[in-house]
């Protein structure tokens, strides 16, 4: 707790610098990462991040120790080289992109590890801090580092904001962009350049092994919360900043602990929350949507079944035993209970407690049942008339469509069919104006009834 207060009181100027640096990094990586994942280039980012290691090592060798400018130069050069290599391979060979990405990632990283071992064993150069570039060490950043890496992040962020409109277009519809004469190739190159730069900016704080996740995870989390690219960028930037803060904090309180993994863990935590809780898209919301839909379908099917029983014997005042309903619809006992109580609550059916006991449609229930049977039969008629589908094939499809057909679509169906009287099975289509209850649907053809499975069709 004490360390927490000490850290966030920002008394120590170095904490302020490092915090500013990692927040800037998180913000720019998060924002740029949105374009990376939307253009399905996330893995390329991972390959570039790993491929930067030999550049870092060479920078150590040439500078004889740690020098931020040399580091950026080396990292940038190798990042770009790896990107060009991947592009070259997929352009000029039959090797699929995923294979070329994997190849470049491992070959460059392997080379980096060789150089790293070489430096460590020969002891020519001052190797202090070299290990930090694998998994990151935010706290190891000092004055110059922060200025250089933070400045780079800020620059990337500013460029991203300026070219936002163009990046949006090129990411969404490159061939349209090309058709209006946009310099698509150059924009794509700029995007690649920004990606290499942001990865370069992250090597000290996050490290080469995990840097790609700072591009990917905040953006992936942000996608759950919004349908607007602008908002997605803002949220991803926020998640990135949060991970930056966590990473720096851990770095200070547990100096032996690498920062990168902690940044990733905190970003992943936000992703996990988004995955579960996001309204509409989150798993919990989807579970409830699904359950609601299956409940509704079950309710509607029971209404239909009651209606079809009325159609069969022409009696609207005969109680229908719950057992028979359940048998016809193949529902579990508990689902049946829920469905019936929901229908009772909405006053679509009533319960008759005499002997035999059972259920009856109310007039509101019959109206709804009629609507369902109507859209079912209209849909069957539509399929067989407009799409020439054989009449014994249309029932299954209508069984699922009837729950989805809106009144708007129903009106269109009626328009295009001219409100037909009969469906392909020669059953009457019950309209609202139809006063006879039940409308004696099976009057035309009793023999076909038996073939149909469950419910009115």
């Amino acid at each position, binding site marked *: 707790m004490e360390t927490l207060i000490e850290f966030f009181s920002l008394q120590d100027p170095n904490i302020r610098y490092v915090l500013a640096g990692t927040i800037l990094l998180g913000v720019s990586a998060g924002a740029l990462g949105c374009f990376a994942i939307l253009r399905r280039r996330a893995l390329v980012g991972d390959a570039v991040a790993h491929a930067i290691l030999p550049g870092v090592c060479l920078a150590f060798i040439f500078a004889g120790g740690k020098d931020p400018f040399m580091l950026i130069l080396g990292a940038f050069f190798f990042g770009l080289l790896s990107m060009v290599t991947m592009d070259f391979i997929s352009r000029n060979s039959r090797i699929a992109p995923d294979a070329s990405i994997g190849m470049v990632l491992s070959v460059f990283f392997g080379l980096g590890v060789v150089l790293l071992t070489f430096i460590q064993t020969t002891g020519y150069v001052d190797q202090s801090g070299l290990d930090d570039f694998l998994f990151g060490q935010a706290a190891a950043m000092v004055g110059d580092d922060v200025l250089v890496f933070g400045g780079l992040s800020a620059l990337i962020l500013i460029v991203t904001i300026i070219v936002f409109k163009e990046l949006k277009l090129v990411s969404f519809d490159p*061939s*349209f962009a090309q058709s209006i*004469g946009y310099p698509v190739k150059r924009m794509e190159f700029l995007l690649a350049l920004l990606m290499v730069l942001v990865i370069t900016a992250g090597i000290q704080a996050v490290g080469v092994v995990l840097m790609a996740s700072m591009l990917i995870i905040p953006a992936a989390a942000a996608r759950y919360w919004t349908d607007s690219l602008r908002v997605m960028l803002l949220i991803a930037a926020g998640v990135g900043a949060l991970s930056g803060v966590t990473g720096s904090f851990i770095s200070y309180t547990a100096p032996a602990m690498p920062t990168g993994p902690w940044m990733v863990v905190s970003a992943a935590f936000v992703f996990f929350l988004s995955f579960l809780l996001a309204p509409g898209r989150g798993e919990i919301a989807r579970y409830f949507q699904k359950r609601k839909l299956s409940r509704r379908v079950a309710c509607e099917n029971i209404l239909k079944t009651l209606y079809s029983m009325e159609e069969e014997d022409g009696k609207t005042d005969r109680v229908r035993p719950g057992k028979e309903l359940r048998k016809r619809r193949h529902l579990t006992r508990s689902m049946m209970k829920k469905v019936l109580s929901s229908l009772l609550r909405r006053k679509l059916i009533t319960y008759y407690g005499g002997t035999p006991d059972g259920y009856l449609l109310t007039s509101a229930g019959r109206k709804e049942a009629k609507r369902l049977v109507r859209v079912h039969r209209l849909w069957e008629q539509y399929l067989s008339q407009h799409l020439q589908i054989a009449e014994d094939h249309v029932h299954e499809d209508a069984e699922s469509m009837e729950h989805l057909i809106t009144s708007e679509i129903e009106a269109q169906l009626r328009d295009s069919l001219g409100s037909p009287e009969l469906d392909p099975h020669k059953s009457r289509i019950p309209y609202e104006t139809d006063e006879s209850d039940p409308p004696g649907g099976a009057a035309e053809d009793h023999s076909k009834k038996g073939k149909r499975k469950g419910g009115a069709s």
Partner: protein
Amino acid sequence: MNNDTAQKSKKTTFMNTSDRTSTPPIEVHDLTVAYDQKPVLWDIDFELPDGSLTAIVGPNGAGKSTLIKAAMGLIPASSGYTLIYGKPLDKQRQLVAYVPQRESVDWNFPISVMDVVLMGRYPHLRLFQRPRRADREIAMSVLAEMGMDAYHSRQISQLSGGQQQRVFLARALAQDASIYLLDEPLAGVDAATEEVIFNKMKELRDVNRTVVVVHHDLQSVPGNFDRAMLLNLRMIACGPVEEAFTDENLQKTYGGRLNILSQMVEESRHQRFVRESDN
């Protein structure tokens, strides 16, 4: 700007439609396209007049989409070039609106209908310039023309196929171009959308725009289009519907394939017959 002079030149051509020497809005010369050495389009030549509505038809794999993509310079051509009002395409891109196939983009992309249509205004904006209020107004009015104004704030994944196509067409309208190249705008759309799109295409033709449509439904060519381009790796015919869209030309365009197809049908019938008689 560039646009204005071209608009003027278009008006002049309009006034002299009988004048044979006037520059056509679009000319394609000697266009040949090959994928991996395998030619998919052979030496295509055509020009189209102002105020025309042309259907490009041909069997699957005939190179219809390839033709308009290559004519727009979106895919590399082995040879050939496109002139727009007599000048190279790259100087005249503002005059051409291209509508890609609906499937060519990711409809889960996080942008709204309005955002997509505003992209049609980008040719009228400088690089890095944000859309102005006037651009938004234009976007709204073209959305209204396509009957999609109520959907302007929807995310694009919430649209039906027909609505997506209308949005794409609205984007092209927002470009306010002279030439419209549409790649399969009627593929998989509902009847209402088909009507809206047909009406809009005819309307554009009637205000002297040049409209070229990759089309898959042969039956709707006569009566809706005034020109037809029959394509099967090479140009079979190009001209007014009554001259180009003849049984003979259709036979040349589809003939071989139809034969193979009918052979396949025969073959499958035969096999089923054999299998049934085995039982």
